[in-house]
């Protein structure tokens, strides 16, 4: 099964990508990425730029409504995602627990809907 690990981070965590804490932050993520590769479970994923760079769009009454900022206005924001191939939710939760963001933010584990993807892409 493929699971997405959705990484939720606080403004402080986003900030530590560029400030003095960069070594601790990047070091943890580099080690985690390497562990995913070594385990042979890494499928893909990327970090996202800070939430303020997001732009949300929806069509209302045939008009585009474009809004500055991310979709949800919450304290912790989606900061990136990693897709892994694992046999079960328990295995995915084990990997989520090792993710650096589990300690300073939160990680949501969600199975990929591959059957839906197949119906869309075939």
């Amino acid at each position, binding site marked *: *099964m493929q*699971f997405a690990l959705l990484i939720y981070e606080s403004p402080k965590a986003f900030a530590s990508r560029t400030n003095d804490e960069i070594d601790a932050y990047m070091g943890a993520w580099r080690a985690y990425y390497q562990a995913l590769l070594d385990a042979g479970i890494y499928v893909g994923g990327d970090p996202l730029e800070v939430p303020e760079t997001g732009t949300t769009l929806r069509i209302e009454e045939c008009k585009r409504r474009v809004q500055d900022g991310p979709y949800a206005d919450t304290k912790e924001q989606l900061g990136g995602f990693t897709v892994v191939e*694992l046999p*079960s*939710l*328990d295995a995915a*939760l084990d990997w989520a627990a090792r993710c650096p963001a589990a300690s300073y933010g939160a990680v949501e584990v969600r*199975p990929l809907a*591959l*059957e839906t993807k197949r119906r869309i892409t075939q």
Partner: protein
Amino acid sequence: MNAVDEKDVHRTIERVARESYGRLVAYLSCHTRDVAGAEDALSEALIAALTAWPRDGVPRNPEAWLLTAARHSLIDFIPHQQVVLTGEPTVLLLRENSTETALTTKFPDERLKLLFVCAHPAIDPSMHTPLMLQTVLGLDAARIAGAFLTPPKTMGQRLVRAKTKIRDGGIRFEIPQDHELSQRLAAVLEAIYAAFGIGWDDMAGADQRGRDLTEEAVWLARVLLQLMSDEAEVHGLLALMLHCEARRAARRGPQGQYVPLSEQDPKQWSLPLIEEAERHLAEAARHGRPGRFQLEAAIQSVHAERARSGRTDWAAIGLFYEHLIRILPTLGTRTGYAAATAEANGPQAGLAILDAIELDLASDYQPYWAVRAHLLQRLGKRTQAVEAYDRAISLVEDSAVREFLLRKRA
């Protein structure tokens, strides 16, 4: 076939359904993760049995007959569904064993995995007990809803949602690994004990609903024990529930009035149940791994001693509570500790323990106020005692307990 025979057949179907339900659902769903699909297939098989068995006679192995019938309806069903998650192996696996030889071969008991799935941390904790009652024991949503004071429709929707999460969320049917086992087993035990607790609270003497649920919980613990007889806490939980069950008849007076434990007549306690509880407690102790349920059972065991010795060793109960509070510092255990200490060392000592509990924590907890009122009364602080009784009375749900508190306040 005449009417009497048909009645017999219906009874057999009922018995097989009760004894085999969880085993069949667990086995049918453990590869597909589709608990709802397995339940549907099994109920179709049970309906088929209602027609076939009175006509052809009860099969030699009714459980295997139901399994084969349920499997056929699963195979009919699967091609219409999207089975990408687990894919073809499931269909193959179902086909492989669906020949008549399956009627004689034994199939593995996967109920333990199902219990762990029901109490999985990814499932809303409030749904652990309802899920177990439905998938392992086959209780219907309406009955579960009654026990949980929830509208049947709401309970039905929550059960469906939880089963969808099991199917699509990637929750595997497996025994947790060693590093997780104790925590995961604790969740299973808690869910079983929660069923017992609801049944116990509901059981206003004549209430069959509550009685049923305590029996179902004992049954679940017995199932768990068959599968994990080396786990001390499983023995501990069963011992605890059996000790409580043993006092069922003594809990109410002839007019249905509430009788507190200290005033119960030990002659009304069930000796066979007490003896069974003691055997499990001794077996648990043999493992040398004490735990919450063993300690609670040990406290009940000291109470049960009164049947033999005529007295209650409150100091021993206090000691068990001291250990219990270290691993389970809940409002309930702290209140129990206060009550035991008051019996052993006087009301002032008990009151000191109650005073150490944060008031906003205890404000809605009826036993806290009942014990507090009792201790204040013993100390002769009448005004304060009446206040505490009023508080306890306002929080009580069981009318027999309310009348008991009203009598004591007077």
